[in-house]
């Protein structure tokens, strides 16, 4: 049985934002109101712990729209479990963040 990691409030907020579809660092900063000095190192920690994984947008797609490719983050299976556990631990998290409109 794998144990669910206990997350800090900021990490839980970031993970929740990611699970709601905000997948870029800048988007997460804007929606959570957390400073970049918190968001980016937290994303690295979550990635190290296997709760999220990062990928690069396809370069051709970005070049075609005349913009640079960005690094985006996705919640892994264990990240989803951790996000659920974090929502139980911090019940207000679910009300803090709106779901992203596609």
């Amino acid at each position, binding site marked *: 049985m794998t144990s669910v990691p206990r997350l800090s409030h900021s990490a839980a907020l970031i993970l929740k934002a990611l699970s709601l579809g905000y997948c*870029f660092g*800048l988007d997460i900063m804007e929606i959570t109101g957390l400073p970049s*000095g918190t*968001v*980016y190192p937290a994303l690295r920690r979550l990635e190290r712990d296997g709760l999220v994984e990062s990928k690069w947008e396809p*370069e051709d797609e970005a070049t075609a729209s005349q*913009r640079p*490719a960005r*690094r985006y983050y996705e919640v892994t299976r264990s990240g989803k479990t951790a996000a659920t556990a974090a929502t139980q631990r911090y019940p207000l998290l679910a009300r803090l963040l709106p779901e992203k409109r596609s």
Partner: protein
Amino acid sequence: MNHIARPTLPRFERCLLTTVGRLVPVQDRDEWSRTWQAELWYMHQRSHHRHISPLAGITDLSIGLMRDALWLRTEGWRLNFSDTATLCLASLLVLSLLSSLIALVLAGSWDSLRPYLRDQWMRSVIAAPYIVLVLYATASRRHTAQRSITKWFSWVKRQFFFVVKTLQILFLAFLLSIAVCVPLHRPFPLTADLMQLFAFVLFGLIGLRWAIHDQEQRCKHCLRSLTTPARVGRPSHNLLEWNGTELSCKHGHGLLSIPEMETSWCQYSHWIDLDVSI
């Protein structure tokens, strides 16, 4: 080869990225730079569309990229140094420095501490070999047999580390005993002298016992602490099969099997080399 488009950024931000990028470990630097160039570019675009000053956002992102770079650097150090022999010796050194600082603060001044240190140093130097002797005479023989055939260089490295660690622990025990007894020295000089010697022996024995235990549970090749303990076998079947704990080197050099109970067919811990290339 893929051509990666790099966004054009203002001069200040390019300079910032180059300067802060030096903090990032070399192997991560290119990707880190690419990530931040893209993030800064988007930051500018959003500021432009929303007609807001980009200054606040850029300042915030500058702090973010600095902290991100520092995190990558410290994480690199953590991966390189965690559980290593170097970290163990450095930690003992820091503890020794802290103990001497506490002793100095409690003594009030260096002038009042120095004669006390000098007197007790000689007694402790005489007592130290006896501590080592008693410890080895009473140490469990359980972990002394190693069936591994290790190269002489690994053996020398391991013994050298153990000798340095032992000396550092004895020195730390001495400084700790001084820190504990120095406030008593002025009102009760004889009692303080005797107590210092007792404290030195006690701290020395505890410390060296730990040193032996720590030495046994390190990789025989890289000297990192062994991790991921796993229980093997069932204690209720002790007379029928082996049971105990297995610890492994996280770099895959080997495995240490520690029996739960000493039995006639399994008295000692066994080091099993897993990396045949060493």
